[in-house]
């Protein structure tokens, strides 16, 4: 996977769009490189689908530019863009067979019949639907329809494939299977994919990079790891995975280490200085549940004492909900199988985490 950031495949420049005076996208900028599997992650109404539709040419932006390989395509209608889309509802043509659906885009280009037939066959094999070529969409299951929709939009070998919530209509088990398949297919065809999803698990597991959107803006762009480990805002931190937040104020900054006095009156928290925060700033210390432990950590770790309210069994691990004084209820993920004793409801325990585990979030 070659990600060339110097000359991006897709470049979204200052795109704004509003519907009936209500802003859907506000000055969005984004660059996506060749071969990426990029996810646009956000809650419904965050503008992610609008952005996708603007890239596809199905919606016109109020202002801003869309460039593909440096060429301005903002004014081009959908049928002239080297972009294809897998629609959320799949939008398969009900009056055509699977073969007819896949051939549709190729026929628009008036390619020779043999070329079309060969490409259709290739696409059917790619999505393992060769046996179903003569079926109509209503004779297929949800998962099969999705494969056909994918084959139909890949058949034209677009520069960019857009997928709008491709897994939303599938059940959980099928969704996990299709995720793996989607990544495999993307690697095989080498086409850049942009996937819109509200499912953070899907975005984290599929994407090479992702953008988190909130109320028409991109709030953070990065690899899944970067976004998970170093969320840029409270919104990102709480939208992606579980996180514990300790609100407080910076009282000391020395040697790359911040000391934060929590608002709940507990002992001071030490955190390595990630974000630029000055003494006196109101911040939150965000700590992932799996970076905390029950019991005392090594020297220099932050320690809080609390009451176990609830233990949530999740299979490979359990989440222990600990109420800390008047402060927040924190979640601590405790893996099973390492011999450690699992606390039970009503226990008084100590919860600790090293200074490096805390991420400083400014307002």
């Amino acid at each position, binding site marked *: 996977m070659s990600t060339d950031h110097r000359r991006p495949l897709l470049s979204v420049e200052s795109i704004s769009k509003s519907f009936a005076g209500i802003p859907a996208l506000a000055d969005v900028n984004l660059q996506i490189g060749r071969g990426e599997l990029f996810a646009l992650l956000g809650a419904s109404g965050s503008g992610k689908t609008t952005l996708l539709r603007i890239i596809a040419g199905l919606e016109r932006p109020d202002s801003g530019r869309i460039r593909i390989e440096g060429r301005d395509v903002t004014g081009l209608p959908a049928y002239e863009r080297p972009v294809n889309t897998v629609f959320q509802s799949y939008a398969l043509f009900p009056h055509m067979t699977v073969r007819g659906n896949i051939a549709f885009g190729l026929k628009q280009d008036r390619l020779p019949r043999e070329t079309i037939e060969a490409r259709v066959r290739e696409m059917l094999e790619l999505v393992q639907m060769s046996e179903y070529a003569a079926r109509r969409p*209503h004779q297929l299951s949800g998962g099969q329809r999705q494969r056909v929709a994918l084959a139909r939009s890949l058949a034209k070998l677009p520069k960019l494939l857009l997928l709008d919530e491709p897994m939303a209509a599938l059940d959980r088990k099928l969704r996990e299977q299709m995720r793996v398949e989607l990544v495999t297919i993307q690697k095989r065809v080498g086409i850049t994919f942009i996937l819109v999803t509200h499912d953070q698990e899907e975005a984290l597991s599929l994407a090479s990079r992702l953008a988190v959107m909130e109320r028409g803006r991109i709030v953070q762009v990065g690899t899944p790891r970067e976004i998970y480990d170093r969320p840029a805002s409270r919104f990102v931190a709480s939208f992606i995975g579980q996180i514990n937040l300790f609100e407080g104020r910076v009282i000391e900054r020395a040697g790359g280490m911040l000391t934060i006095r929590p608002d709940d009156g507990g002992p001071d928290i030490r955190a390595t200085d990630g974000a630029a925060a000055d003494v006196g700033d109101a911040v939150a210390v965000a700590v992932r549940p799996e970076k905390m432990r029950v019991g005392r950590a090594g020297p220099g770790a932050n320690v809080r004492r609390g009451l176990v309210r609830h233990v949530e069994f999740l299979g490979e691990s359990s989440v222990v909900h600990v109420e800390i004084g008047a402060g927040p209820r924190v979640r601590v993920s405790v893996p099973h199988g390492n011999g450690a004793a699992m606390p039970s409801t009503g226990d008084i325990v100590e919860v600790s985490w090293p200074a490096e585990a805390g991420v400083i979030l400014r307002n």
Partner: protein
Amino acid sequence: MTGGREHSLMRAAVLGVPWLWLSAFILLPFSIVVAISLSVATDAQPPYVFGPVLDNYRLIVEDTLYLAALGNAIRIAATSSVVCLFIGYPMAYAIARAQPRWRGPLLALVILPFWTSFLIRIYAWMTLLRPTGLINQVLIDLGIIDAPLQLMNNAFAVHLGIIYAYLPFMILPLYASIERLDPSLLEAAADLGSRPWRRFLSVTLPLTLPGIVAGTLLVFVPAVGEFVIPELLGGPDTPMIGRLLWTEFFNNRDWPVAASIAVALTALLVVPVAILQHMLAPREEAREVNP
């Protein structure tokens, strides 16, 4: 369970009502018409004696008058249906794609003429079209023409009347099928490189075909048998089979011939309609299952 018997009784009752209705108001009257068509006309009350004879059918096949009138009626009805389709499709499309709050009022406007009697509306056209009518008066007053145009009692007026009267029957089924068309299918077609006109031919048209067929039949079938419009707006050059039937029945008091025309016309129209419906049935089913 006692419910089983009650259930099947209920079923029989529910299915029985429409059957009873159809028997009493379609099957029975039509059987009477068939019986009359096999009778011999006499100067009596009622003016026929049951045969059974096929003489009336032989007459309407052998006398070219009837076949010519039928051919003319089919031609006029077919032309009018096509014109209705070309006017109705863009109208239905525009209504179906209008803002949802506008669709109701626009459809109401299409149906509005039905609030006035059909006959009165045709008379209204007469006052517009006749030599001393509004259209000719305005054209003469404006100096565009010197003498009134012959707008009435010809094929033009018959076509105009039929198109005017039956247009709503074209628009309503077209609207229903266009409105059901999933707009994301057109977006998908555009996304796959299809230009607007090809998109219409390859997606919109085939998927709204049931509406086109329904609308065309709803205009064509009654138009073939139409007699009020050719009677009031038509002339000697526009014999139509419905008008001939009316003449046979009321003027010539030849009930058997009139009845045989009615039976032949029904058979001629019902058979192709049944075949078309049978052909389109699987398509309808496919549309409904698709998400």
